[in-house]
């Protein structure tokens, strides 16, 4: 147990990384809240956009990587891939929930509603529901191999909605505004300063994701090692000449 506790102690480099990330996070918030210009139509409400959009992008990345690690686990069957998948999955659910909370905060004053069932919002809600399902499934299955496989399939299904979600406002009629930044570089319909603030916020959200990932993977490895130890102990025959006390 003390061994596990020692392994869970954060090394210095990680503490420095998390500290710097926290400072950058404060800087990103300051950029959005203070240095960003006001928008012509939205005024100060534009400031909510930086938090909402950056978090949403990272939520997509996190859910996508959960499926990638899940697929790797299905392919190679290595426990470390499952550890990575579950860490990314927790971040995915966390960031996706934040996306919905931030989206509601942003859309009430701008679009005049907290929620509406348009294609983009519906797809996001389905994704969150699937990620909740991911953890319910994991909680229900005791066998680590089966748990990893079944939950990987759930993650892949959740990630399958991502391309539709990403292009929803282009493909379907939605209330949610379309993309302002095309990944193929074909067009940016956003003021240069606003774009810089948004990209900075996104990078910082990515650093937060990475920091939490590292921390969660370290925890996951200890978790996996303990689980293995226990299952080995359970199958090992009782030592001869000693009274085995079962509690």
């Amino acid at each position, binding site marked *: 147990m003390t061994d596990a506790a020692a392994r869970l102690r954060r090394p210095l480099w990680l503490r420095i990384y998390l500290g710097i990330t926290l400072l950058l996070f404060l800087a990103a918030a300051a950029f959005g809240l203070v240095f960003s210009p006001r*928008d012509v139509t*939205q005024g100060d409400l534009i400031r909510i*956009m930086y938090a909402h959009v950056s978090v949403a992008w990272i939520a997509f990345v996190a859910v996508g990587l959960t499926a990638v690690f899940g697929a790797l686990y299905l*392919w190679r069957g290595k426990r470390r891939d499952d550890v990575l998948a579950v860490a990314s999955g927790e971040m995915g659910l966390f960031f996706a929930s934040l996306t919905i909370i931030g989206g509601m905060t942003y859309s009430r004053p701008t679009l*005049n509603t907290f929620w509406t069932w348009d294609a983009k919002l519906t797809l996001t809600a389905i994704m969150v529901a699937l990620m909740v399902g991911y953890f319910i499934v994991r909680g229900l299955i005791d066998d680590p191999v089966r748990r990893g496989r079944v939950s990987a399939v759930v993650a892949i299904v959740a990630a399958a909605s991502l391309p539709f979600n990403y292009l929803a406002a282009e493909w*379907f009629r939605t209330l949610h505004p379309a993309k302002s930044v095309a990944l193929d570089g074909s067009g940016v319909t956003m003021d240069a300063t606003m774009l810089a603030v948004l990209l900075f916020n996104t990078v910082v959200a990515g650093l937060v994701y990475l920091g939490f990932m590292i921390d969660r993977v370290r925890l996951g490895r200890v978790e996996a090692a303990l689980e293995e130890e226990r299952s080995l102990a359970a199958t090992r025959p009782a030592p001869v000449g000693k009274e085995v006390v079962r509690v």
Partner: protein
Amino acid sequence: MNRKWAYGLAGVAVLAVAGFMIFQALSTSLVYFILPNEHAADPAQYDGRRIRLGGIVTPGTIAFDERELQLTFLVTDGLVAYPVRHSGAPPELFKESTGVVVEGRFDDGTFVSDNVLVKHTEVYVAEGDHIDLELLRESLK
């Protein structure tokens, strides 16, 4: 290894089919709002039904009765324009030439709305950029 490839290919195929079906379902049944010209093409289909109508607020047609809290304007898609009557105050970002989605039903050629949603564009412009130019021009006159 062969079994893995078989499972992998089957998985990809299933996902592709599922994705195609999701796309079909979303594009046909998840039409979030209809355009005025689509309504005009077949008004009987939407008769008395609660629908969402989407379009642009025609400039110069907004009227707001502050005492009765009645908002009226024309919503258009460039082809057909319909009068909209809404009981309530206009939303914060509601203005001329902005996109709106109104919820309600048609009553005698007028769309009676109980909810006005603003569909703002994905264009974000810093305040002051061109306003300053206008001011500059004004001050130079």
